[in-house]
């Protein structure tokens, strides 16, 4: 029992909070090897050669693109002197959520498997690293985490993902059942495919997978960040706020091309949470702002905002223009920022409180950098509150989905390769079954018996 050889697993090993740092842990025989493929130490050493229990400063780099993903501390632990009793490599990541996710994904691309809930602890226990008293606790963790990750996965599958995955899965299943039927019932009249038809069918499977990978990558956190729009009438201080946030919190990583200074979208890394801030200052100030906002496009972008920062000028009081702006966004997740507190106030507090009672209300002076910490904290609080959910488990589920999609994609490419090499049906089915397996792992179903059911529902077979 104890000496069962296991594969190498990887996961985010710290709960993700507002701290902005997190840890990716790889455990198993290939842990150090996998790590060394994606880590460049500042000292220039290869961590594959590193001694146990040493820490190395350096960068996680995607070997395919050469791009730096995050600045990290890599900690090497050789078995049995580690938490799990196996070879362990940990990356302490500093760049926050996005890089953490990217590091995890790189480990999966280079041979690790995503750890199951509680798997590190289970391995630790199996390897004698935890004592008997802890066994029950581990079982509880496994049970509760499994339940939680199931419910998160269900949640993630809402919004069309599961339908899309199921649609591709159905196509794969149908093709597979057809091939299998003709293999298992050679004496029945089952029409075969010529290679062009097969090519076509494979394309019909590959393309939607490709699309799904793209959309999965466009997941809010990964590329777009949390879309935050700053609105307000001219001169309240929107651009100033954006500039302030930018100076302080230049985003470390964004893979998005075209993020230049002269557009009104900026990426900000707020304690590890990527914010995509849209400053409506691009609007010409001579014109009526509300009119301008009324332009369909802006309206759209407002609707899609995850978070709205509605700015007011304390020296001007609450104007009709403010109310018009507000009416456009009042359904949104909004923080009201009353700016220019360094100036004389000319505003009715009660009216303000009454008008914006549904939203957090903050007092700032961008000019004197007052209330800025509070603003940041309020933004984070809003994000970590219910609606804008960036819990690390959610993130892990997404990585899991993306990983499965990537593997499904690799497998369908192998099928194409086999077809190109003139391999007979049986060889096509090998990787086609993998495609089905990975797609099913997203929706959490097993497939073996389904293929046989499909065979008999699609074809009239046997005698």
């Amino acid at each position, binding site marked *: *029992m*104890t000496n*069962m*050889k*296991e*594969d190498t697993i990887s996961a985010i090993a710290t709960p993700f909070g507002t701290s902005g740092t997190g840890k990716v842990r790889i455990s198993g025989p290939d842990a150090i090897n996998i790590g060394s493929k994606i880590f460049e130490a500042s000292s220039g050493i290869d961590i594959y050669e590193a001694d146990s229990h040493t820490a190395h400063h350096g960068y996680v780099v995607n070997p395919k693109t050469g791009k730096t993903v995050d600045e990290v501390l890599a900690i090497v632990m050789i078995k049995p002197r580690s938490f799990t009793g196996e070879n362990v490599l940990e990356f302490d990541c500093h760049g926050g959520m996005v890089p953490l996710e990217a590091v995890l994904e790189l480990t999966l691309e280079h041979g690790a498997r995503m750890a*199951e*809930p*509680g*798997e590190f602890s*289970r391995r630790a*226990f*199996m390897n004698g690293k935890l004592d*008997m008293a802890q*066994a*029950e606790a*581990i*079982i*509880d963790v*496994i*049970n509760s985490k*499994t339940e939680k990750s199931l419910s998160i996965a269900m949640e993630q599958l809402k919004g069309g993902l599961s339908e899309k995955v199921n649609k591709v899965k159905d196509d794969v299943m149908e093709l597979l059942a057809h091939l*299998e039927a*003709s*293999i*298992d*019932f*050679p*004496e*029945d*009249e089952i029409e075969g495919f010529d290679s062009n038809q097969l090519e076509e069918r494979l394309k019909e499977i590959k393309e939607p997978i490709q699309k799904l990978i793209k959309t999965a990558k466009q997941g809010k956190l990964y590329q777009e960040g949390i879309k935050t729009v700053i609105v307000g009438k001219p001169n309240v201080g929107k651009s100033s706020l954006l500039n302030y946030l930018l100076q302080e919190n230049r985003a470390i990583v964004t893979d998005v091309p075209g993020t230049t200074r002269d557009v009104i979208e900026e990426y900000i890394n707020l304690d590890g949470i990527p914010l995509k801030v849209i400053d409506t200052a691009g609007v010409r100030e001579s014109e009526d702002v509300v009119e301008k906002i009324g332009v369909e496009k802006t309206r759209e972008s407002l609707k899609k905002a995850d978070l709205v920062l509605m700015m007011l000028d304390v020296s001007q009081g609450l104007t009709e223009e403010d109310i018009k702006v507000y009416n456009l966004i009042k359904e949104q997740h909004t923080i009201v920022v009353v700016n220019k507190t360094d100036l004389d106030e000319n505003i009715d507090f009660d009216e303000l409180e009454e008008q914006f009672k549904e939203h957090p209300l903050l007092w700032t002076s961008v000019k004197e950098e007052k209330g800025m910490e509070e603003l940041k904290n309020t933004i984070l609080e809003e994000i970590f509150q219910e609606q804008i959910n960036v819990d690390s488990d959610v993130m892990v589920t997404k990585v899991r989905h993306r990983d499965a999609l990537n593997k499904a994609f690799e497998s369908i490419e192998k099928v194409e390769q086999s077809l190109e*090499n*003139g*391999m*007979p*049906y*049986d*060889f096509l*089915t*090998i990787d086609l*079954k993998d495609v089905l397996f990975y797609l099913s792992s997203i929706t959490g179903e*097993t497939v*073996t*018996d389904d*293929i*046989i059911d499909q*065979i*008999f529902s699609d074809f*009239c*077979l*046997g*005698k």
Partner: protein
Amino acid sequence: MENNYNYNKKFEKEYDVIVIGAGHAGCEASLAPARMGLDVLTLTVNLDHVAFMPCNPSLGGPGKGHIVREIDALGGEMPRNMDETMLQIRMLNTAKGPAVHGLRGQADKKKYHQRMKQILEEEPNLDLKQEIAETLVVEDDEIKGVVTKTGILFKGKKVVITTGTFLKGKVIIGEATFNAGPNQQYPANKLSGSLEEIGFNLRRFKTGTPPRINKRSIDFSKMHEQEGEKGLTFSFDSPPFERNQVSCYLTYTNDKTHEVIQDNKMRTPLFSGVIDGVGPRYCPSIEDKVVRFPDKGRHQLFLEPEGELTGEYYISGLSTSMPEDVQYEILSTIPGLENAEIMRAGYAIEYDCINPNDLKLNLETKKVDGLFSAGQINGTSGYEEAAGQGLIAGINAALALKGKEPLILDRSEAYIGVLIDELVTKGTEEPYRMMTSRAEYRLLLRQDNADLRLKEIGYELGLISEERYQMFLDKKKDIERTLEFLRDYQVTPTPENREKLKSLDSGALKKPVKLAKILKRPEVDYDDLKFFAPELPEVSREVKDQVSIQTKYKGYIDRQMSQVEQFKKMEDNLIPEDIDYSSLENMRLEAREKLKKIKPRSLGQASRISGVSPADISVLMIYLEQEERENKDEE
């Protein structure tokens, strides 16, 4: 103990193994232990139906043919019996990849039966008797023997039940129904009761067969002839099959046929509710096919000869339980069968079978020690599936008597392993038939390498003779030697070699390569290699094929082998038999119940039980580790 049972005479001899049934399962279950040196008694309802084929006169096809090859490697009799008596043989699926090639042979039913009966009769350690077993003698959950209809008590240390479709057999032909086994044989009406008394929950399955017609009434000129191929055999060790082969013929149903069926739908037992047993989806009756796939304009029918000394033809594809008058009407619509004379009407049969969840992987019942079961009674269908199980049950009864570890083939070793694992672990809701798509390591479980996979095992059991084993070792050596040659031999791009490749439509050679690389090219055959390497070893066709497959598909094969390695880790992780699942309080109730019922042998098997999740397996692993530590502490 015997006092609790009614009998007139206690047979003087106590047998090591009693096999109830001499069908395809029963014959293998009898021969294996007898050949392993044990005293065996075989009981059958009717001696003139030993190894009888109640349905199609053929063996094999993809999956089923694989099983026959495995039976051969393990020293079973079915393949050799077929080779000696068959009328025709072909290889199916030759264009779909080596793993799914399937041998299919036409049997001569009478000869098949006669030769097998003779083999049993001549087996020194085996007594073959016409007796109907009615009661199982069980004491303290251990099998002790059987009592027959005519009042004889036979004592046996192990009993293997292989009763096929005989238990409470009920034949249905349209409105006519009567109690019978297959082919109007006497049914076994009492044994079911004995099984129920012991605590088995019996289920009712059904299957069917088409009419047989007289050759003189068939117009073959309206049909398409299908001939056999020379040189093929089921057994690895039979001499090449060179006898004259008998043909089969192909014809089709048409709209008129389907109309007749639709018109008589209400008289169809299947739809009128007369039949309530569960039938297999893969062997639907013609009425089922027509009703379920109304858009299909025609269905194929193969006419297969039942034997050389009879004019009876079997109409494959026309299985039916419609009334006999409708059967005549159906035939009259089919080209070539317009005037067909029915000799035996098609019929459906319902029978009792057990739930294979009640078995262990060695095919012993969980309820009664020493009681094994194999074949159709376990919920399968098909001669090959029956024989494969019979062989394993017989071997395991013998191994148990010898105090040895059971023979359990896993899913990466054999189709027989896949078959038994699925029956025992998942159960089945319809008569189970083997298909290659059930095997996840299909590329490794080829029919061409069944000997390489299993012959060692057959030899060690004592079921493969020294002579056959030596032939096998020689073949293995040839394969290795040839593979080595291919790996080492260098081919240089000389003008002659280039010219040769060109003539084979194969890409040009730019630099020297190993011979194996040349063979890897899809358009290059083994025999083409002689040109590049005159010293190429002279080896048999089988060795050439083996070497070619292993070379051409190496990448795919290696991938499956590494998956198997992963699979074995879990499979080799055994769960103690005495584990008490009810004490695993932290495991989900559903998983606990399932585990308790199936009693998996390994973590691998546990993980295949439906309703047991990976998280449950993790919990189980922790529990087992806990137990182990506790036991260590006690020592």
